[in-house]
């Protein structure tokens, strides 16, 4: 692959995913409204699509305020981390045969590494704001994300066992005959729940929990700094959806009447829709329930899944 091709792929992935993230502002509001028997934003432009532009313009022109009591540089650093880490995570997602930014042989580990760096945005943002609600949100976010990172990593190991590779292109290729959702249903469920907790989306939006903590870790943020958290959340949803599709739903694989990229994005959008559906339908658990649920239910379950997968893989080989 030439350097120019590489640059084009990087730019293409950036363009597509930043646009998806921005478009999700509209998609989420419309879908949430539909599920609540409302119509949602439908005034600005065709189908209300220009609400995305309006929201972006609004965020750009808001006063970019840094509180005098905040730790200035850490305060500025925090929103950059969330977007940067998620975009880095997107680098290893194979969209179609050959269309991948970095075809690393430790791709899955890289994804886990980047999602674990995402914790810093919450922790530092909450701490630098020097506000008690932000700090509480940051504490909750840190413990939640560290806990669920463990299950996320462990739930993916079953997939690694079956495909015998950390490389995502190989993992997709290994699903040629059978998607891993069939062989790894428990892994899929746990990965999805952990992904929900990692992106701190509802129902696991405990770090921001607006009814308890104002807006949690980003209470003090305004303007485009808040916009970064906002867009980072949507990018996180897209990333987790894309990873779910890649790891469990055969990535770009699908009947030949549509090109592979289209299959990939169709599947991804289904999962983005499920993310939004969960926001529309499920209530937020209490903080200790979430952590207890993780350590007491998901951890034994994921270890059991790993054990059974390994045993069956060994049995099949012998």
């Amino acid at each position, binding site marked *: 692959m030439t350097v120019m091709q590489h640059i084009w792929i990087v730019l293409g992935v950036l363009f597509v995913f930043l646009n998806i993230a921005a478009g999700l502002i509209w998609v989420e509001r419309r*879908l949430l409204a*539909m*599920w*609540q*028997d*409302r*119509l949602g934003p*439908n005034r600005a432009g065709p189908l209300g699509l220009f609400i995305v532009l309006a929201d972006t313009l609004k965020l750009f022109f808001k006063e970019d305020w840094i509180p005098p009591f905040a730790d200035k540089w850490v305060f500025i650093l925090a929103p950059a981390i969330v977007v940067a880490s998620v975009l880095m995570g997107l680098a290893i997602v194979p969209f179609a045969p050959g269309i991948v930014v970095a075809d690393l042989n430790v791709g899955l580990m890289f994804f886990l590494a980047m999602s674990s760096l995402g914790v810093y945005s919450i922790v530092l943002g909450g701490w630098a704001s020097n506000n008690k609600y932000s700090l509480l949100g940051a504490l909750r976010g840190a413990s939640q994300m560290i806990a669920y990172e463990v299950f996320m990593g462990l739930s993916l190991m079953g997939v690694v066992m079956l495909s015998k590779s950390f490389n995502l292109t190989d993992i997709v290729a290994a699903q040629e005959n059978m998607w891993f959702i069939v062989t790894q249903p428990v892994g899929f469920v746990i990965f999805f729940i952990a992904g929900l907790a990692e992106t701190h989306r509802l129902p696991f939006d405990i770090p921001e929990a607006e009814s308890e903590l104002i807006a949690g870790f980003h209470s003090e943020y305004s303007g485009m700094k808040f916009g970064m958290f906002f867009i980072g959340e949507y990018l996180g949803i897209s990333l987790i959806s894309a990873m779910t599709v890649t790891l469990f739903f055969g990535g770009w694989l699908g009947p030949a009447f549509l090109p592979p990229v289209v299959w990939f994005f169709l599947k991804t959008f289904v999962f983005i829709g*499920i993310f939004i*559906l*969960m926001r*529309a*339908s*499920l209530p937020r658990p209490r903080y200790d329930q979430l952590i207890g649920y993780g350590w007491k239910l998901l951890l034994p379950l994921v270890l059991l899944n790993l054990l059974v997968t390994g045993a069956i893989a060994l049995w099949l080989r012998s």
Partner: protein
Amino acid sequence: MISHLRTMWLVFIHLFKKKVTIEYPEKRVELPPRWRGRIVLTKDPDGGERCVGCYLCAAACPVDCIALQATETEEGRRYPEFFRINFSRCIFCGYCEEACPTYAIQLIPDFEMAEYKRQDLVYEKEDLLINSQGKYPGYNFYNVAGLDAGVKEKGKGKDEEKPVDVKSLLP
């Protein structure tokens, strides 16, 4: 787990339900006739002002948004010299309508009163007076009042007794 999936399915079904949103500027809201909206001053069937400047509405108003000054014509008919309602204060509680003895002040089903300047929300008498009898057609306070204000003479009203002749000793 099953209950969560069931919840999600039930919420998903709502995608195909009828929406409750009324797309306002194109479709109008059906307002009931007793809706408490913009305040108006109504007129008699013969076109005179109903308001007699009794100040009861101003007294009843919990937010003190009504200001008026009563005065009289040569015939002895009272009317407000000015009548001012500050709609940026008004809470549309309808107490003024309840207090009004002459059915002059009425709340009508209209809420489209947005203005760009706050000062424009202060309505004067010219803005408030409408050329209509409002909810009580045919009612004229001076027809049932015992006062001669140019509408009818004293004692000429329906079911009204003749005025007592204080100079006579007859019962």
